């Protein structure tokens, strides 16, 4: 090879040290970009999205039909009191979001199970961990990608309230609150999924562990139903449907947001420790 172009390449390729904060974000975004593009080349992502939206449509139109039947019934009975209490949000959007949340308990593990487990299995983990990148940046990158994927999916499910707005007269604020709730819920799920994927190189184990943890968050308050001890209070605080239910019914309380943010922070912290421990084992 001629000497001149090689020299030029050398000079250009020399790493210019960015400011630390900027480079941290840059590495996370590089990884997030690659991960997100990766989601859309595998069929799993499309299957998950389709299942989510098709089931959502199924729930939506069923509940809408039921609402219509009830509406006609009470109109025929000329019962204005009950008619006034009938409410599109209450009858359609709330149950829709609760059902979609359950669907996410099953679908999120399928999305996140690959993230770390697959890298370990195929050996690309060695590329990631020997690159001049911090483990926190790797975790952040993967989290951003999975969270963006989820938000795209939730965004597409926004078609359902949009239909209501076009043909009915729902309370938009309450619907927004519910969608913000399911956005927080899905992003928390994703953080938990990343954690379970980081502890194994087997995708199935990652998925099942994630599924188990998410389900546990749903039922964790059951033992508290018997008594009112402090432990019971703790379990009730940890219970996911309580916090989510509040937001779905239109109440945005900082306590519920703090709850979801804590789930995210704790799960990502554990993920980072787990990735680091592979390095320091």
């Amino acid at each position, binding site marked *: *090879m001629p000497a001149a*172009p*090689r020299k*030029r*390449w*050398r000079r*250009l*390729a*020399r*790493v*210019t040290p960015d400011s630390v904060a900027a*480079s941290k974000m*840059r*590495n996370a975004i*590089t*990884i997030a970009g*690659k991960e997100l*593009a*990766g989601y859309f*080349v*595998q069929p799993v992502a499309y299957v998950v999205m389709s299942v989510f939206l098709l089931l959502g449509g199924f729930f939506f139109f069923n509940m809408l039909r039921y609402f219509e039947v009830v509406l006609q019934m009470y109109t025929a009975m000329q019962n204005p009191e009950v008619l006034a209490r009938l409410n599109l949000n209450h009858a359609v959007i709330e149950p829709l979001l609760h059902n979609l949340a359950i669907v996410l308990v099953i679908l999120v593990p399928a999305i996140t199970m690959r993230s770390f487990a697959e890298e370990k299995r*195929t*050996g*690309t*983990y*060695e*590329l*990631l*961990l*020997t*690159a*001049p*990148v*911090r483990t926190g940046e790797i975790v952040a990158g993967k989290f951003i990608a999975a969270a963006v994927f989820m938000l795209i999916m939730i965004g597409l499910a926004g078609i359902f309230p949009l239909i209501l707005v076009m043909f009915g007269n729902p309370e938009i604020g309450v619907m927004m609150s519910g969608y913000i709730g399911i956005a927080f819920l899905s992003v928390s799920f994703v953080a938990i999924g990343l954690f379970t994927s980081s502890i194994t190189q087997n995708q199935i184990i990652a998925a099942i562990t994630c599924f188990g943890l998410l389900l546990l968050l749903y039922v964790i308050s059951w033992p508290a139903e018997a008594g009112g001890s402090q432990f019971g209070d703790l379990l009730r605080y940890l219970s996911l449907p309580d916090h989510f239910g509040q937001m779905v019914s239109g109440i945005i309380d900082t306590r519920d947001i703090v709850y979801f943010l804590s789930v995210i922070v704790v799960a990502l912290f554990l993920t980072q420790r787990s990735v680091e421990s*592979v*390095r*320091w*084992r």
Partner: protein
Amino acid sequence: MIEVKNLVKSYGNVVAVKGISFKADEGAILGFLGPNGAGKTTTMRIITGFMPATSGTVLIDGLDIFKNSLEARRKIGYLPENPPLYTDMRVDAYLRFVARLRGLGRSAVDEALEHVLKVCGLEEMSHRICGHLSKGYRQRVGLAQALIHNPPVLVLDEPTIGLDPRQIHEIRELIHKLAGHRTVVLSTHILPEVSQICQKVVIIADGRVVLEEQLEKLPAGTSLEEVFLHAISKEHPEDAGRAEETLEEVGAGHA
């Protein structure tokens, strides 16, 4: 350039590396030779900062791979035993990603990509999906990713394993060509590979160094094979005067 000092690594009860020390000189290719299970991969994973040693350390250009990990890792290009390819990415997208990950600025990526594609003979393959490539081309992409940020140090773990004879030849040529003035550590269990492309050899067996020598300093008429077999067949490779003794004995047979 690379200084490996008293590395010990145990996996639970198994001690895979039992106190390995050697130096790789700047700008030279070092052959890291040893039978399967000797601890080559383990040592290289420690050198590249993938995992820590139980004790001992590694200096890359004076930087400690544990204490100055990020700085030290910036200087290394690493090809693991299995080329670390994302099987559903295209070759060019993959190499761009690695370039960014290793700290190249956006403007430098195109040129670096063009260069490694050319050097590694991948120009025709740049739009192929990594997972669809043959083993030989995967190895080339593996070399290209190790090289893309133009590192002063290259660590290659058995780069010719699993290739057919023609591919082995091509990859060896390629390593020779891209070594340039880089410091290269190349592990192998194939003897001729060392005599063909290396300037220095470190032989390990069962987690210990049994010989560290410049190839040119091996006594005339000594075949590396004899040194190797002799070294690894010694009952207690850890005791006394290892390298010199080994050489003298083997050399004497040829005098």
